[in-house]
């Protein structure tokens, strides 16, 4: 029998793991509610204990990167919305920021403020969705499964209503353009935002009470799915997952973009690295997002929202040879875009476009974290990893 530490080398043969034991292979997924998408993990079980976990990605692969080589830079923004479909604003911003950096376009300050507000509201909506589905994953542990889910979706809906007011869409906004934004905000948006975040702020405290007083919840999350900080950064894991493992790293504070350089962004870390720590970090981030929105919502400057002349043709943005990588802090970590310019349509398409998705890195820790836990723990761990399959497979 190997020790736990030796077991978590994902490349060992199955025979080396447990020579004598009669392992049972169990397929978790591809269509299992806890995967929040289509993802398959082959579990090798000794009784109820997972000995080895082999994830298989690619069930939702849509060839977005190939498609982006075919479409022009203006056409790809609504396409990348569907990658991380829980936070589409971030996908748009990541593409737009890379194009702006390559073309040396300065984004107007009003657009930067709007992007920051959209990003923080989106982070709040994304974490709310995570919290609701996590409550459902844990089933009875959070007061009967679907109740927390319904609460969180009620709050998330109010944020989507704010976005709908600005862009006309609940989900796939297509509101960012290279050089700025396409839809301007009004004073009504500011008023509605303030009322909305006030309500959500109160409700978050209610959710915290549901957790902190719940013995079953603590038992199911404390000490479960411990991810080592060094392993996390070596895997390229960033965002709340890494911060829950004690990695003090947040691109909003450390490599500021938009107007984060002028704000004091508080970064919350926990040292335990288990499911409970990841919950605490995300809850604190929700409070912090509310604080940031409240701080800047009244000081949005007047002015233009697009830093370049709008064009009528879908090919009017052309990027020559060269390559660039820009990234931002999405609700799941470092979301970046690597563009090699000088592609088809005389430079209006990318030669190669790669989306660096934080979810793929998060999912790659499964073979290291799952062994030694029971199948029910696996569901809790998968819930706190919060991988979005549209982004894992792209």
């Amino acid at each position: 029998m190997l020790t736990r530490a030796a077991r978590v080398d994902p490349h060992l043969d199955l025979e080396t793991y447990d020579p004598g034991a009669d392992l049972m292979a169990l397929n978790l997924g591809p269509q299992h509610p806890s995967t929040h998408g289509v993802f398959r993990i082959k579990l090798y079980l000794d009784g109820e204990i997972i000995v080895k976990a082999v994830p298989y990605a690619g069930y939702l692969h849509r060839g977005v990167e190939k498609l982006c080589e075919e479409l022009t830079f203006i056409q790809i923004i609504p396409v990348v919305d569907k990658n991380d479909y829980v936070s589409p604003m971030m996908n748009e911003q990541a593409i737009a920021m890379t194009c702006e950096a390559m073309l040396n376009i300065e984004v107007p300050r009003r657009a930067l403020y709007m992007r920051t507000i959209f990003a923080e509201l989106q982070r709040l909506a994304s974490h709310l969705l995570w919290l609701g589905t996590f409550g459902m994953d844990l089933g009875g542990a959070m007061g009967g499964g679907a109740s927390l889910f319904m609460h969180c979706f009620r709050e998330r809906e109010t944020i989507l209503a704010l976005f709908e007011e600005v862009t006309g869409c609940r989900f796939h906004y297509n509101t960012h353009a290279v050089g700025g934004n396409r839809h301007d905000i009004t004073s009504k948006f500011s008023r509605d935002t303030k009322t909305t975040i006030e309500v959500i702020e109160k409700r978050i405290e209610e959710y915290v009470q549901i957790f902190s007083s719940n013995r079953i919840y603590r038992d199911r999350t404390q000490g479960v799915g411990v991810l080592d900080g060094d392993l996390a950064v070596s895997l390229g894991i960033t965002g709340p997952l890494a911060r829950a493992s004690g990695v003090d790293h947040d691109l909003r504070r450390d490599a500021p973009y938009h107007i984060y350089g002028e704000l004091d962004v508080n970064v919350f870390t926990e040292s335990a690295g288990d499911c409970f720590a990841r919950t605490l970090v995300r809850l604190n981030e929700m409070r912090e997002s509310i604080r940031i929105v409240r701080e800047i919502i009244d000081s949005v400057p007047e002015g233009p929202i697009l830093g370049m002349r709008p064009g009528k043709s879908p090919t009017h943005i052309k990027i020559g040879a060269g390559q660039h990588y820009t990234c931002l802090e999405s609700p799941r970590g470092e979301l970046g875009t690597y563009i090699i310019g000088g592609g088809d349509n005389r430079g209006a398409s990318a030669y190669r476009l790669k989306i660096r998705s934080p979810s793929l890195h998060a999912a790659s820790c499964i073979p290291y974290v799952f062994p030694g836990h029971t199948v029910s723990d696996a569901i809790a761990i998968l819930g706190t990893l919060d991988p979005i399959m549209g982004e894992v497979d792209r």
Partner: protein
Amino acid sequence: MTGHEAQEQFVALLRERFGVAEIPDGNYPLIDARHHFELARVLKEEFDYRIYSFVVASHHLATADANNDGADVEAAHYEVATGVRCVGAPAHLASWRVRIELDRAIPTLFPLFAGADWQEREQYDLVGVRFDGHPDLRRLMMPEDWEGHPLRKDYAIDTACSPWR
């Protein structure tokens, strides 16, 4: 240390120890494939670049010789860009490119960064570049029996595929 200073330090490292003469504007530095692993090791162990950020492979066809004078013709090749990042401020990204011929392999970074496992599998799957010493170089996104590598430039976006292979 600011991001600017970190970049200067990275450029100085490339000049002094890895023989990079100049870094063209708007491009990441191009280094020799022999130095690829060593550069990543030095960055991780001596300069604390511990976050594995990205690896991007791209396929380049041979450039046509328009004037037929034999100048500036490039053979078909792969270009692999790698980025690693340091933890905490200034979160500087060190990024470099490597060029290799189509029949050659590039050393894997898996012994340094566990994240290279899946990322390099993805690039192998989609672009076809092979990583030397990778423990488990299988396809990640496409089905195991898929033919060809979709992100290659000689792979048309409307390539027919049979649903019952």
